[in-house]
């Protein structure tokens, strides 16, 4: 098992992502996996500071500065694990030896219920590609009725 001190600094993945920042959350679409994710503000901050140079504890300090509230390094670790799980990090992170205690429930138990509000959260969002693929056919696709086509017109046997 690696020494935590030797663990590579977390780096946010840059390639193949579309990012849209909204008011209090950040949406990320993975162009390779065709998955969409929603990062709450804490997760988005953690991701923002994953520059490959900043350690987990330093990220915690930076977020403390932005949010004006104490941030436990385990909160950052919890966010990083979610970002890793959703393929939003470049660096391979090694799960901490005490990683078993990094569930949302464990953190709330340890840090108090009030901390739940500020916990990082990465959730899945319905991906447009999957929906569009399942709801209508693109131009040139075989069709029998107009309703099958995204364009609404089935000309002969193909969608326009």
């Amino acid at each position: 098992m690696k020494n935590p001190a030797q663990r590579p600094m977390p780096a946010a993945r840059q390639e193949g992502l579309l990012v849209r920042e909204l008011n209090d959350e950040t949406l990320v679409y993975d162009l390779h996996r065709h998955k969409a994710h929603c990062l709450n503000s804490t997760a988005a901050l953690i991701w923002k500071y994953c520059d490959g140079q900043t350690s987990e504890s330093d990220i915690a300090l930076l977020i403390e500065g932005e949010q004006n509230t104490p941030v436990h390094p385990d909160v950052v670790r919890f966010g990083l694990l979610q970002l890793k799980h959703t393929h939003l990090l470049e660096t391979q992170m090694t799960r901490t030896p005490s990683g078993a205690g990094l569930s949302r429930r464990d953190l709330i138990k340890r840090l108090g219920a009030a901390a739940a509000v500020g916990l990082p959260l990465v959730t899945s969002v319905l991906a447009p590609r999957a929906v569009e693929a399942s709801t209508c056919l693109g131009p040139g696709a075989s069709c029998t009725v107009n309703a099958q086509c995204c364009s609404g017109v089935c000309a002969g046997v193909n969608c326009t």
Partner: protein
Amino acid sequence: MLSPQSRPANRVGSLFGGILTHSWRRSPEALECSDATLAELLPLLAGSMSGALAWWRVRNTPHLRASPPGLELQETYRFHSIRTALREHTIKQVLAILSAMGVEPILVKGWAAARLYPEPGLRPYGDIDLVVRPEQYSTAIAGAKDAGGEYYVDVHDGVGHLDDRSFDDLFERSSVAKLDDVDVRVLSPEDHLRVLCKHLLHHNAFRPLWLCDIGAAVENREANFDWDRCLGRHKRRADLVACAIGLAHVLLDAEVADTPVAKRAATLPSWLAPNVLKQWETPYSMSQAPVTHQAPMSKYLRDPRGLVADLRRRWPNPIEATVYVGGPFNELPRWPFQVGECVGRAARFVARLPRALRKD
């Protein structure tokens, strides 16, 4: 403005309008309605691509924001925000390819309309409509096919039914808007608004989002907006544009007080707004012709079963018929225009018949 109480016959349409009122603004008023009403309208909002705009209003109403339909609208908003990011990605790709081919299209509707909203994801769009010079059409089609991927890039050789101006005229007045670091050529604000108005009425105003586009275009115009250019010299066509803007005022409370169409907005023909509200009860393209047609007319030459029912389905909407025959938007009955459109369509059908029969 119409209230749900004032027109019980168009209750759903009126509620729809109430939810989308001012929704294109940066800070619209918090929405006041019950959870049950929002739940009732949810399928219509989501199915007509208005869900993100509904969320924009719901987000400032605590009891709605946390309600199940409110949370669903928030998901719709996220979905469309991502979808719009993907569309913008495609726009950049297709414009780069077309630029390399020496084609500079004008992007109409879609992104051009969405950029006037506080966030582009609030105004989703399906197609990416690109207008090119007729002589560059086939080149542009090939380029769009390379770049479009699974998303639909719709190339037009001129603005066709959307406008009566030439491509060169529109191009000369067009401007360049920025999509991140990419230049996107869009219509001038005057031409953009006119095209939105014509497109709206050409399609019976069945999608409420299109009326929001008009509200956004009118309220975001610059002080030097050239109304003469927007309305044009042709009196009847100018009135069509004025009526469309008037609808945005009457149904969505778009601010028109300081415009030349303010008077017209207050005197719309009595059949117009109720007709639009009726359309909003089923605001889907699936509910519009030609999707609603059961079969091509030529099919009934071989087997006339179902012809009468299908003819009934083809009876044109009063708005569409008025636009089709170029009639005036006044208080006179609409049926002569509806008959006129049927005759026009029948004539086209007869003209195409020999070819259709040869094909069979």
